[in-house]
């Protein structure tokens, strides 16, 4: 029978249940589900490994990410240079580690800032409604009718290239999604009975929306923050690859990949672009695993 595995599992659970060995589950249900999600846990581990090795880069490599060493140009990976060296003799491994700092800062930082603005505005205007709400909604609509990368490139062409500009631009293009999510949650939550009760107690509006309603919308917002982080890291890599992101003298994951535009490098010097591309992919993958796990664990409609 096809279901024999399932049947055996049922038998096992039943035996345990009848022996009284299954205890009522305690603690946070969301946390427990997260811990049980194998992919999410793999994600957390990869995320921490990459994050920590970027933060503690100086402990992991003695090389400088920016020091040009013309005696050791274009070396393939060795015990001295784990990921080899680039055209000007810079150590690629060191560049990947230090570049991770900037790339993660841009991705995570912009996502958090965008969330702060989007959720801050969305909660308040969503709860209050009125003219403020209409204005915020229209402004976000304008931002969101541009394809993200087009808007980013447009703003880059106006504002010029710099690290700070890039973060500001990412925040500008990213807050709309957060805002809409927070507003939508607000619109449904503000009709709940407990909110009516709070209002009748005369509690102030900011207090109601940020202290009492916001925590109930936190699940989807956290999921969105992870997804936005992933998106921004990919966007930074893409822009820098095009040479339009972070200025080339600052090492970032995208800037390291920039060299692969040259077909000779692509074909002959794989160590200059393949490892860093894989690091980006792994990091984004881990963030997506975490986001997916969060989504499953905060979604009450799913059980298992």
């Amino acid at each position, binding site marked *: 029978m096809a279901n024999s595995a399932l*049947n055996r599992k*049922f038998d096992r659970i039943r035996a345990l249940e*009848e022996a009284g060995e*299954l205890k009522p589950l305690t603690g946070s249900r969301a946390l427990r589900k997260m811990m049980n999600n194998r992919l999410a846990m793999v994600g957390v581990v990869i995320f921490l490994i990459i994050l920590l090795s970027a933060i503690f880069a100086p402990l992991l490599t003695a090389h400088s990410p920016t020091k040009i060493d013309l005696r050791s140009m274009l070396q393939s990976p060795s015990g001295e240079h784990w990921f080899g060296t680039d055209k000007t003799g810079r150590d690629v491994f060191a560049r990947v580690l230090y570049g991770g700092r900037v790339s993660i800062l841009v991705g995570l930082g912009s996502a958090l800032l965008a969330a702060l603005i989007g959720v801050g505005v969305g909660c308040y205007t969503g709860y209050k409604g009125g003219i403020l709400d209409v204005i915020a909604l229209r402004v976000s609509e304008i931002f969101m009718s541009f394809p993200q990368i087009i808007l980013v490139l447009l703003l880059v062409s106006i504002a010029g290239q710099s690290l700070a500009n890039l973060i500001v631009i990412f925040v500008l293009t990213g807050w709309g999604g957060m805002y809409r999510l927070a507003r939508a949650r607000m619109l449904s939550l503000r009709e709940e009975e407990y909110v009516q009760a709070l209002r009748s107690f005369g509690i102030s509006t900011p207090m109601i929306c940020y202290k009492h309603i916001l925590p109930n919308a936190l699940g989807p917002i956290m999921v969105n923050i992870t997804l936005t982080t992933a998106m921004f890291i990919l966007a930074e890599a893409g822009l820098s690859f095009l040479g339009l992101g972070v200025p080339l003298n600052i090492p970032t994951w995208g800037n390291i990949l920039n060299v692969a535009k040259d077909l000779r490098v692509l074909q002959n010097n794989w160590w200059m672009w393949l490892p860093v591309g894989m690091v980006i992919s792994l990091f984004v993958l881990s963030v997506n695993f975490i986001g997916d796990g969060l989504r499953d664990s905060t979604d009450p409609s799913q059980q298992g």
Partner: protein
Amino acid sequence: MTGEVALSVKNLKTFFYTNNRCNKAVNGVSFDIKKGRTLCVVGESGCGKSVTASTIMQLLPSLSRIEEGSITYHAEAGDIRIDQLDRDGKEMRRIRGSEIAMIFQDPMTALNPVYTIGFQIGESLKYHTDLSAKARHAKVVDLLANMGIPEPERRAKEYPHKYSGGMRQRALIAMAMSCNPKILIADEPTTALDVTIQAQIFRLMDELKEQHGTAIMLITHDMGVVAELADEVIVMYMGNIVEAGTVDDILRRPKHPYTRALLDSIPVLGRGRNQDIKSIRGATPDPYQRPKGCQFSPRCDFATETCSAMPDEEYITETHRVSCHHYKDISQHD
């Protein structure tokens, strides 16, 4: 032929295995559904009455199974053991819809929003009869007309969102009755409807029973409905039948403390505002931390130490059975 047993359930146990726990949702129930009679299943939410219905239809979710017992459908061609059929096998599918049909609690969500009512009723006919497309359409219009839906020809071409709640439930009943099933299972069919519509739906079900001799299993938590419609009643609590009998047995001579408490908790029209309405003390226990023995004992006023053993079912009369250690002592209080 009225009164003949259409389906018998013996010592049925259905357990759920969600969240790595085992919930004994239905823990050994036995009853018969008879032709031309209405069997009411009452009990508070979570007592296993809906699970019993789903088990008969084999509509259980995947993380659950029938552990023990039997469900026997007494078809004209001979008995069929439903519990031994493959959940989505050919035979089970043939029985569903044509022999045993079901209507659900919430008519708002039970219909597919993207198909017309006519299409959805016709689907049943398509799979259970040999009618041509034209004949099916005629039959659909006929069914809708029988359910008291005005302008059935036009209404059949409309989508569910244009129907009111009561009309949707009629459409669902039309769908269920389309192939003249021998048994109709109704799972709280009026909970989501207005009181006035409720009465209409019940009248409709009663007519069906009279005209076609359909056996009806009606799940409800409303004692008023029981008094109105039932021929026989079973009272369920925490996955067990605590008391079963004819409607007179249960309403006039209740023996089990739970049944009595249930009846005491209903206001009676005409007794004025000062009548004594008792609520049942305590709350339904956690299904994962069941009390030992009689499931009702922690909430029961008459519980003693003997109640920590599961009581057997005792027949008071041929039709009336109860599972309580103390039912004789309790009735002496009257």
